């Protein structure tokens, strides 16, 4: 058997798997934005100035995300169709929710219940889409839970709506993000 030819086959397989291996780590992003949203909720409740609390906190999260991504881009980069698709979905989600929050809310289009339902449904959409692209059942299930929470926000008792949102942000973003970070750390160790 020609060992050189076999070595070439092995090389192709190893390099293809290197290229397919995700170099993007997003656990920190979930944890950051989840913590930001919980901070904004607490700040808005205490101060009674939701516009200021959400504006400042979300802007801070946006700046931190931008800085971290710029730093990552400066070190090494490769773009795959998967990474571009995921980036597009989450970027469009971010723009949509920002428009709804900072244009729709002051215009009086939403009340707390309807905005919460829209937010939860959009989180379901982005998580399920990401899960389908990544072929990762856990994220699909997470997205379905976000959708169920959206249904609960529409049909459940009104006083439970803010708590539903807080619980979903905590478990669906902060805890999910920390879990992702732990997974990514393990993957990096075995890379």
């Amino acid at each position, binding site marked *: 058997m020609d060992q050189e030819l076999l070595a*070439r086959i092995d*090389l192709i397989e190893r390099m293809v798997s290197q*290229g397919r291996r995700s170099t993007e780590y997003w656990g920190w992003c979930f944890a950051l934005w989840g913590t930001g949203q919980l901070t904004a909720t607490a700040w808005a409740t205490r101060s009674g100035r939701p516009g200021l609390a959400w504006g400042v906190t979300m802007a801070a999260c946006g700046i931190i995300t931008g800085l971290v991504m710029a730093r990552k881009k400066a*070190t090494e980069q490769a773009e795959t169709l998967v990474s571009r698709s995921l980036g597009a979905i989450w970027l469009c989600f971010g723009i949509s929710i920002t428009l709804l929050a900072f244009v729709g809310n002051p215009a009086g289009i939403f009340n707390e219940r309807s905005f919460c339902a829209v937010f939860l449904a959009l989180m379901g959409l982005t998580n399920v889409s990401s899960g389908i692209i990544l072929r990762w059942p856990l994220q699909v299930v997470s997205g379905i839970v976000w959708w169920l929470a959206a249904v609960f926000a529409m049909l459940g008792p009104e006083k439970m709506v803010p708590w539903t949102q807080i619980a979903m942000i905590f478990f669906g973003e902060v805890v999910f993000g920390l879990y992702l970070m732990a997974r990514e750390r393990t993957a990096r160790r075995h890379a």
Partner: protein
Amino acid sequence: MPDLPELDQVVHGQLRLAVLSILSTVEKADFTYLRDRTNSTDGNIAAHLLKLEQAGYISVEKTFLNRKPMSIYRLTSAGRTALTNYIRNLKKLLGAEFNKQK
């Protein structure tokens, strides 16, 4: 006995094959990414990237990020065809080896 195919020598080089294999799975990759994934050095990979570029198998886009020069590489359609043909020929050769052993 059937004629055995020739392997494209531009693709056959170990480092060049590694680069083409990686680029076949990503849309684009920068110099640092390719160097690190192939465990190569700046000078070594640069020479092989140039050879692939001269063969028309990859394209390079020179740009700047934070005022630092950056080279972004992509697999061209000629490069994809060359890699596909190379793998097909490799399989044929290995098939011939298998048949010889039986």
